[in-house]
């Protein structure tokens, strides 16, 4: 296919996937392989007083690993290194790993797991944001606070006096399970001579690599991490695989045999990370004509028992908290705090869905208070090119939220429906009727790592040509369903003018590929894709520079040039290292400056029905309009948006994590409900294209954006249908009923 960028090129590994040939970690096995399991803490917090191995179990056949067997440092190397691989004398959350077991027979292994008793002398634990903030108990550090940020623009304190109106609101979001359909899993081979090799389902092979270097105290070249086909991640396989990979490797190290560790669904749900619950206070000053004067935002997230990625999640949530609006005075205080629940972690959107939910509910509230429609109020405050965000980042690209809003409202028939629903909802006075409503949210999502993050990462991509004229892309960026293999092939193929099939993507393996950074933060297409583009450009330039290739060439000429070059020099490989776009400056101390190189912009419109008999709210139609730079592949891009919106609908109306003493009580697919094919409305996806100068082919990031806007749009629509302002998600029929019955 000529010029594949912008075309619906079929998924590179599609055939393997539709025929069942794609190999996920649980599909692999090795000779003489053992199975491994984790024995976990029965209590939320306390001292481990005894571990006993009972029952009618042949314990001498088992490999048993505890904290004292750790050859290197007993922590998961990430940000603060406060999380142990295996609890050493003290546990800080339910289901914390304490003992590892391995055996050939996985049925006997399960029986053995049930016969390990961990005795805990319990200490008081805390399970809520409120208890953590009021320091009912100090369970982490000096004050339960993992991280705080302050964003301060203009002078908020002086602004209150000039306000015609001050509007306050409080908003909450719950935990959410990533629920990739493939559970976490890893297989390890580990011994002193060969070092440690792990195959696993993961987003970030180099995170696992970094963690295992510390865990084993081995040199970097002795640790090798290989990503197997990965059945979804959504953030849930960003940092967690470091744990399961380390556990499998500890068992392999002690046994001298390959060890496979695969969680079942119940264990995956109860023990691994979820989206951070949040609570946001808004206090907003506006003029009588609806101009924002000041925004004070207090944003808190529950990080769980260990720090993991909470500071970074908090950072993104903080920066997105004031949204796509221009306001002269903004102050955002934010905190990530500790509770005795399993650590919360990365999940698509990474803090932004939480703070954007609060903001976009609050914008409707402020609009109502000043007597403007939600639409008109936002139009008076949208940010434009040349204006500054909450972090004083000047927007240097053309952004026309006004026009996007007009188009999205037209596509969703918003005005006519608003008018019709108002009429029909009033007229329907039968006891059990359906009420309808429509609402929207406006938002943006920054692509790539925050602030100076990309500069610190120093990501590298290599490209290698073969004598047959094929080009192999070497990067640690993983295919987890989002389309990395396809997008990288499109970029390389377009840049080199070669056939799509002549590009090969090397499976991420830290023994073979450079560190192109983690597969997170909507950075793979935009940031790593740009490195693919420059690495393959390097191939072309090298061939041209050494006289083997003319400016214009055919595939045959390229192949011959590669063969000639390799015959003369042995190999042909080029690498490219991240360079920030010009004019990106970030101050980590003041939290001011260019938070992201580029933002995607969007308007999402939700139409809902509310059933007065069953108290069910249902999304009936959904319009997702966004500007993500240039669309590299319309099928993959729409697939990202549709999938993200469906997950966000789940976050809003279906997915309720029930907590009991810090433990997820509904850790099964039977009672933690994600949307099924019967539950999802038509999701209508529209792109505005505005090529980004520093993205490959003009692309910006896309993956997380669709997680941000659906929740507030849906609750805004429910308010339109029912007249009731709900401020907490998930909004389950039980809460709707509770509230309705009190009216």
């Amino acid at each position: 296919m000529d010029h594949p960028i912008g075309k619906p090129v079929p998924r590179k590994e599609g055939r393997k996937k539709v025929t069942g040939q794609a190999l996920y970690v649980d599909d692999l096995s090795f000779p003489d392989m053992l199975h491994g399991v984790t024995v976990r803490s029965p209590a939320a917090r306390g001292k481990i007083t005894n571990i006993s191995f009972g029952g009618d179990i042949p314990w001498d056949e088992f490999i048993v690993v505890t904290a004292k067997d750790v050859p290197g440092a007993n922590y998961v190397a990430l940000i603060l290194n406060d999380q142990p691989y295996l609890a050493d004398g003290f546990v800080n959350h339910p289901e914390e790993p304490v003992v590892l077991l391995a055996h050939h027979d996985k049925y006997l292994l399960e029986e053995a797991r049930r016969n390990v008793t961990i005795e805990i002398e319990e200490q008081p634990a805390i399970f809520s944001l409120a208890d953590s903030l009021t320091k009912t108990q100090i369970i982490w550090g000096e004050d339960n606070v993992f991280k705080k940020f302050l964003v301060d623009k203009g002078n908020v304190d002086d602004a209150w006096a000039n306000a015609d109106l001050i509007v306050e609101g409080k908003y909450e979001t719950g935990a959410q399970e990533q629920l990739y359909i493939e559970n976490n899993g890893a297989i390890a081979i580990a011994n002193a001579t060969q070092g440690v090799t792990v195959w696993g389902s993961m987003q970030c092979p180099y995170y696992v690599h970094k963690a295992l270097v510390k865990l084993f105290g081995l040199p970097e070249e002795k640790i090798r991490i290989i990503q197997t086909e990965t059945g979804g991640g959504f953030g849930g396989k960003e940092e967690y695989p470091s744990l399961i990979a380390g556990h499998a490797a500890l068992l392999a190290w002690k046994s001298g045999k390959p060890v496979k560790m695969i969680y079942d669904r119940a264990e995956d749900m109860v023990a691994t990370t979820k989206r951070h619950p949040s609570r946001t206070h808004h206090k907003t000053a506006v003029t009588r004509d609806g101009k924002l004067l000041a925004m004070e935002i207090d944003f808190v997230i529950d990080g769980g028992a260990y720090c993991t990625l909470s500071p970074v999640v908090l950072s993104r949530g903080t920066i997105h908290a004031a949204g796509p609006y221009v306001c002269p005075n903004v102050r955002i205080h934010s905190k990530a705090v500790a509770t005795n629940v399993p650590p919360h972690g990365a999940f698509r959107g990474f803090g932004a869905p939480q703070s954007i939910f609060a903001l976009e509910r609050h914008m409707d509230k402020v609009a109502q208070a000043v007597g403007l429609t939600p639409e008109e109020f936002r139009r008076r405050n949208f940010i434009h090119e040349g204006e500054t965000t909450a972090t004083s980042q000047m927007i240097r690209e053309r952004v026309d939220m006004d026009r996007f809003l007009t188009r999205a409202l037209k596509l969703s028939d918003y005005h006519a429906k608003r008018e019709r629903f108002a009429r029909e909802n009033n007229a329907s006075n039968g006891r059990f009727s359906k009420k309808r409503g429509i609402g929207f949210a406006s938002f943006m999502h920054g692509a790539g790592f925050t602030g100076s993050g990309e500069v610190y990462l120093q990501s590298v991509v290599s490209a290698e040509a073969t004598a047959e004229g094929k080009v192999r892309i070497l990067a640690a960026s993983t295919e987890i369903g989002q389309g990395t293999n396809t997008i990288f092939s499109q970029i390389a193929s377009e840049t080199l003018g070669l056939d799509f099939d002549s590009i090969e993507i090397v499976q991420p393996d830290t023994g073979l590929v450079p560190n192109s950074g983690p597969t997170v933060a909507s950075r793979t297409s935009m940031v790593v894709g740009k490195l693919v583009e420059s690495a393959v450009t390097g191939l072309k330039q090298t061939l041209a520079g050494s006289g083997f290739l003319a400016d214009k060439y055919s595939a045959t000429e390229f192949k011959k040039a590669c063969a000639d070059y390799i015959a003369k020099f042995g190999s042909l490989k080029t690498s490219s290292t991240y360079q920030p776009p010009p004019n990106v400056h970030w101050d980590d101390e003041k939290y001011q400056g260019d938070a992201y190189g580029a933002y995607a912009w969007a308007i999402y419109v939700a139409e809902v029905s509310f059933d007065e008999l069953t108290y069910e709210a249902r999304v009936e139609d959904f319009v997702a309009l966004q500007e993500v730079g240039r669309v590299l592949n319309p099928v993959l891009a729409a697939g990202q948006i549709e999938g993200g919106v469906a997950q966000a609908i789940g976050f809003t109306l279906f997915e309720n994590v029930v907590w009991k003493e810090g433990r997820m009580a509904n850790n099964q697919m039977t009672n933690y409900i994600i949307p099924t094919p019967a539950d999802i409305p038509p999701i209508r996806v529209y792109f505005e294209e505005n090529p980004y100068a520093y993205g490959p082919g003009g692309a910006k990031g896309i993956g997380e954006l669709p997680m941000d806007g659906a929740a507030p749009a849906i609750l805004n629509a429910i308010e339109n249908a029912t007249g009731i302002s709900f401020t907490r998600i998930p909004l389950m029929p039980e809460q709707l009923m509770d509230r309705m019955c009190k009216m």
Partner: protein
Amino acid sequence: MQINFKVNGEERSVEGFPMARLLDVLREQLHLTGTKEGCGEGECGACTVVINGQIVNSCLVPLAQANGTEITTIEGVAANGELHAVQQAFIDHGGAQCGICTPGMVLAAVDLLKRNPEPTENDIRNGLAGNLCRCTGYMKIFESVVRAYQK
């Protein structure tokens, strides 16, 4: 106990516990790893196979019950390397993303089209309601099914 059945057209014989899950026997003894485990309790459909023309969740089928049956797994859908129209449509129209639900989803879609060659959107939604996908939001899966029967 010994169990005899026909898997993807071939006579097979396995030795196993009567209550062993068919899912495990397919994956571990017959090395047909295209059938996936998602939840182990019949909710997600990743382990879908066809037994005597009926689609079932193989995680809920005890081996004993499979004796004498004819089973089709995802490995048996393409004939002699020729993809089924549903498989081709899933590739062309974005029906597969991470691919872990895909084997089950493809089998459910093939079964649906066998029973109902021109399903409405509602028929498709209901026909696939036992198969969960976390990546696609289902839109591209519905489209793939429609494109498959239009072919």
